């Protein structure tokens, strides 16, 4: 893991400021994100953790303005310095994939079943660089496949002829096709078994190191994130509740929710935790009817009266980390 100060110098690839997204549903307005700030610098891997429905996938889709049309969005999402949310349509299409690409979850469904893998990896190249000759495209696809550890001959395969891990590798090759500076990995290993998961994570970490790109990894699995991320942001009910270096968040969480999340994964060498895995009682709040004050208060083991009055802001702590809890020092 690089030292704390190194990434500070690199330029910001992704700069999300005050991002709020709300969906209109038949049962009322549903805020999916409530004022999220996030920064990804070149060469940095940032993880976003949280349980289902905390808004992490909405966050991923907003980066390339892929959110549903009826979503209300406010705030800023700057990719390479330009706001994705307000840029023109032509510009947006140019930014998509050439500046920032996505490794989707569920590779089987994200690949077109009637097209060969080669054709699909070549698709972004043909879209963004129409002048490239056929031979060059074929060669680039072959190189991309080798880069993700697949033999060239696999380019002739249809998606259903590949295993889950191979398909995910194809998705990664596709994400690299236009040499983007930012890669968003949305649950990149969710559908894979543990062995393949480790391989894919190694691959992603290696690519980030070799290519010097920035990566935003979305996952519910804190163990996965601590494996490959430099920094991790923990989300709860549409807000970032804790952000810090991966090691800090995993081993020494400050926010009670991050604490519970961290406790729910076994730590190697900690026998006590292994025999008594800690969980978190209760369910996340209904985003349409968030409680007054801290949205985590109803499930929080440390909630005090003050927690039910006002939502705590993200407080800067020492060691370039932050947590949104009023009782942060009292742990």
């Amino acid at each position, binding site marked *: 893991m690089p030292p704390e100060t190194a990434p500070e110098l690199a330029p910001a690839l992704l700069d999300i400021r005050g991002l709020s997204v709300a969906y209109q549903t038949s049962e009322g307005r549903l805020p999916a994100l409530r004022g999220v700030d996030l920064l990804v610098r070149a060469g940095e891997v940032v993880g976003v953790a949280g349980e289902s429905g905390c808004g992490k996938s909405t966050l991923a889709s907003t980066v390339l303005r892929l959110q549903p049309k009826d979503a209300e969005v406010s705030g800023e999402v700057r990719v390479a310095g330009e706001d994705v949310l307000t840029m023109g349509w*032509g510009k947006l299409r*140019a930014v998509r994939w050439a500046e920032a690409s996505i490794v989707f979850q569920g590779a089987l469904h994200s690949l077109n*079943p009637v097209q*060969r893998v080669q*054709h699909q990896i070549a698709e*972004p190249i043909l879209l963004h660089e129409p*002048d490239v000759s*056929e031979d060059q*495209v074929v060669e680039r696809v072959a190189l991309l496949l080798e880069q993700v550890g697949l033999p060239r001959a696999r380019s002739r395969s*249809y998606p259903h002829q590949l295993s889950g891990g191979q398909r995910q590798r194809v998705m990664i090759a596709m994400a690299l096709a236009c040499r983007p500076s930012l890669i968003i990995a949305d649950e990149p290993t969710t559908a894979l078994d543990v062995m393949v998961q480790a391989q894919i994570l190694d691959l992603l970490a290696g690519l980030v190191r070799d290519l010097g790109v920035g990566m935003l990894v979305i996952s519910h699995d804190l163990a996965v994130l601590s494996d490959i991320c430099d920094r991790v942001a923990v989300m709860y009910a549409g807000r970032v509740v804790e952000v810090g270096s991966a090691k800090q968040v995993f081993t020494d969480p400050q926010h009670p929710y991050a604490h519970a999340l961290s406790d729910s994964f076994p730590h190697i060498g900690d026998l006590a935790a292994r025999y008594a895995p800690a969980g978190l009682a209760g369910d996340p709040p209904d985003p349409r009817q968030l409680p007054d004050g801290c949205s985590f208060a109803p499930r929080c083991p440390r909630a005090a009266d003050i927690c039910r009055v006002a939502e705590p802001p993200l407080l800067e702590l020492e060691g370039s980390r932050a947590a949104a809890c009023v009782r942060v020092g009292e742990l």
Partner: protein
Amino acid sequence: MSAPDEARQAPPVSARQLARRRRALAWRTNWRLFRRQRSGVVGLGILVVFLLTAVFAPLLAAPETIEVTQATGGVLEPPSSEFWLGTDDAGRSVLALCIWGARISLLVGLLATAISMVIGTLVGLTSGFFEGWVARVLYRLTEWVLVIPFLVLAIVLAAVLGRSLFTIVLVIGVTSWPSTALLIRSQTLSVKERPYLERAKALGAGRWHQMTRHVLPNVMPMVFANTTLTVSIAILTETTLSFLGLGDPTRVSWGSLLEDAFEVGAMTTGAWWYIIPPGVCVVLVVLAFNLVGQALEDLFNPRLREG
């Protein structure tokens, strides 16, 4: 990065060559799978025979044999060694008439189907893919044309536009597309929601690219399978319209043969050789197209197709 969108949408020649090679291989694979289905092969065989008959009609039966003025036979002669299928009321060979009738019937069937398919696919794809008022208007239009009594509309159009081959083709074409459009629309709606279309969007693909590269290839098998069914409907419709006296009076088709036979009372005089052959031709061709259509449907259904 700021290059115009138009430039992005035009795929270079190389991509087209790539696609062509891929398609050639796909055709070979599909042909191998098609041959496994006996009924489809039988249907295809029948079709080939009829197509060859239509193409080589002048060689099989000299053009003058179907001229009323140059007929050599007697009135309604039963089948003999000279006239294998007997003669009609003008002394022409029924076999020669059926051979020449194949030309018109197949031509009308195929042309009308082509029109119907193009309109149906375009309307279905557009109304399924887009979500604005255009799509809604197209969908309503489809439903509207669908509920108009088909035969009545065809008769009215044929009567208004006059009796010609072109009219018949047009009438059948513009009245038979709605079922295709609905089919394509529903398939498009389902394909549109698949994650690989979201992926295509994230790739920076425009609507045109998404539609032509992802949606169309996925609904195309449906279009093909539907084509063969529409051909048989078109041939039947041509027969119906001709039988009702709305066909081109200067040309011989299976439908007009049936109408002539009906008018001269072939039924009551027992001249079965005048009625049955054109009828059998219609039935055989329709059956053949249906067999091929079913075989294609099985072929293109991924659940029935093995890796």
